[in-house]
């Protein structure tokens, strides 16, 4: 199959369809508008559901309802919009329902700006909803990888009965790249959705979808069940890539667009005689702590780079556990760092060490 040129946001829409999406619910916000624009045409033409809700809060609760009926459903938004959805996301995890949430990050806080950013790492991995819950978060670095992950994400969500978030920055949404839409995805055994509230003629007993558990012992048991599930996610779904680690003097940690800029910086640094490795987390939750075991013991330090002022940095510090000096370089507010800035950040590493 020959490659086609696609805009990131449109590719997200099409990949969701290829992943079996039955319904989309959303509310417009830049820089992700091409996702609903694309799906508003495609879903209707293919007898599927597309709803532009009255707000982000309404959209995520429509996702809650339709997911409860056993359908493959999604929403997409950008930073302040994802903030509004946090309550619904917590309810969906509590009720153990699968769904796909696409978050296309822009600069914050507040309304912020519309240029690309990675300042929603905390929002994605820690969440703003209540309770002991996790969302499975993947952060692809190319449009191709975005397509491949989105195609698989409904299966992952169904398998664990938990929301999957695909987190990209606005640049990945807005730019166009050559992609292959037909890369095969991993096949999973998916149990039937016998829990779905899709009418008494489809299930024997009464099915209830709820996140309410008044009895504290029952609620603790429910939380322990969720935790066991999250342990399985950590064991089976942690994803990362390690590059050029063998002879590395320094190791950079970067994800998404930032990791591509770092890849180019590694080439420049190599020409300057500085060997630098890269740890690229693909799953942000679960964070790939085991990648840090591949770091050679004699390196001079780890540099965490982000298009934010240091959020993944927390996870890097936890994974490093005090072993190596850790430095940080980041731009924020919609500024995309140049390759040369990453090169300089390594060159003046000692100045950037996080005490």
């Amino acid at each position, binding site marked *: 199959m020959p490659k086609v040129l696609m805009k990131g946001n449109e590719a997200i829409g099409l990949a969701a369809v290829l992943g079996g999406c039955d319904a989309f619910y959303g509310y417009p916000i830049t820089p992700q508008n091409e996702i609903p624009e694309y799906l508003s045409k495609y879903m209707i033409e293919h007898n599927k559901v597309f709803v532009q809700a009255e707000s982000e809060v309404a959209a995520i609760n429509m996702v809650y309802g339709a997911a409860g009926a056993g359908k493959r459903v999604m929403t997409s938004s950008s930073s302040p919009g994802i903030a509004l959805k946090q309550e619904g996301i917590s309810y969906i995890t509590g009720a153990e329902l699968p769904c796909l949430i696409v978050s296309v990050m822009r600069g914050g806080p507040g309304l912020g700006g*519309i240029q690309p950013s990675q300042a929603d790492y905390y929002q994605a991995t820690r969440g703003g909803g209540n309770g002991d819950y996790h969302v499975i978060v993947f952060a692809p670095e190319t449009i191709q990888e975005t397509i491949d992950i989105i195609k698989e994400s409904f299966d992952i969500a169904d398998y664990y009965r938990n929301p999957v978030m695909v987190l990209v920055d606005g640049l990945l949404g807005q730019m166009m790249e050559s992609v292959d839409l037909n890369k095969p995805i991993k096949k999973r055994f998916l149990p039937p959705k016998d829990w779905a509230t899709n009418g008494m003629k489809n299930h024997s007993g009464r099915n209830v979808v709820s996140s309410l558990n008044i009895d504290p012992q029952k609620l603790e048991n429910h939380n322990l069940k969720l935790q066991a599930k999250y342990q399985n996610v950590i064991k089976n779904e942690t994803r990362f890539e390690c590059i050029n680690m063998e002879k590395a003097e320094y190791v950079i940690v970067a994800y998404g667009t930032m990791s591509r800029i770092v890849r180019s910086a590694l080439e420049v640094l190599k020409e300057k005689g500085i060997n630098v490795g890269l740890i690229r987390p693909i799953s942000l939750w679960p964070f790939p702590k085991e990648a840090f075991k591949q770091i050679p013991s004699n390196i001079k330090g780890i540099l965490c780079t982000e298009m934010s002022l240091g959020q993944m940095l927390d996870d890097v510090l936890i994974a490093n556990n005090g072993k190596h000096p850790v430095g940080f370089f980041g731009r924020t507010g919609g500024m995309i760092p140049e390759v040369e800035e990453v090169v300089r950040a390594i060159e003046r590493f000692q100045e950037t060490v996080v005490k």
Partner: protein
Amino acid sequence: MNDAVNIRIAGFGGQGVMMAGQILAYAATSEDLNGLWSPSYGPETRGGTANCAVIVSKKPINSPVFLKSHHLLAFNYPSLIKFMDRVKQGGFILYNNSLVSETVLVEGVEVIGVPINDIALELGSIQVINMVMLGAYLEKSKIFEDSTIHKVLAYVLGERKAHMVELNVKAIEAGRDFIRKQGLIHA
């Protein structure tokens, strides 16, 4: 062609800067190379400043952004001034000298004025200045064959604007022609 070519195209919103860039990225894809197009514009569109970055590469593309490009296509004066110092040594700049009267010199970079507004007006449509510039670029860079570009044009314009293909092809040819004649003068 080098392993990778970085091209920056800049001008006012409405001059067709984005479309010219997309055509190059589509052409790369259809030639089984890797193409990347990334836009940069403010909330304003028509009349505001707009630029796009295109990468055509034999290998997978790492950084989607670049500080310096091999080639710059500047559709107006502010774009030329903003980006002329961000062209690599040995690269070239094509600028719209219908709108820029000053002569521009950049050390180590070939700078060629192309009167794209005048050429487009001669063809009867100011709207095809982007295709005139694209034609000049294709001739100067030798990056893609006409057959590829014509295929891409038909795809991008679609059925609804199929009648526009002919004019666009003419504009590309006029741009190519300008560069060919330039070559003769220098010889």
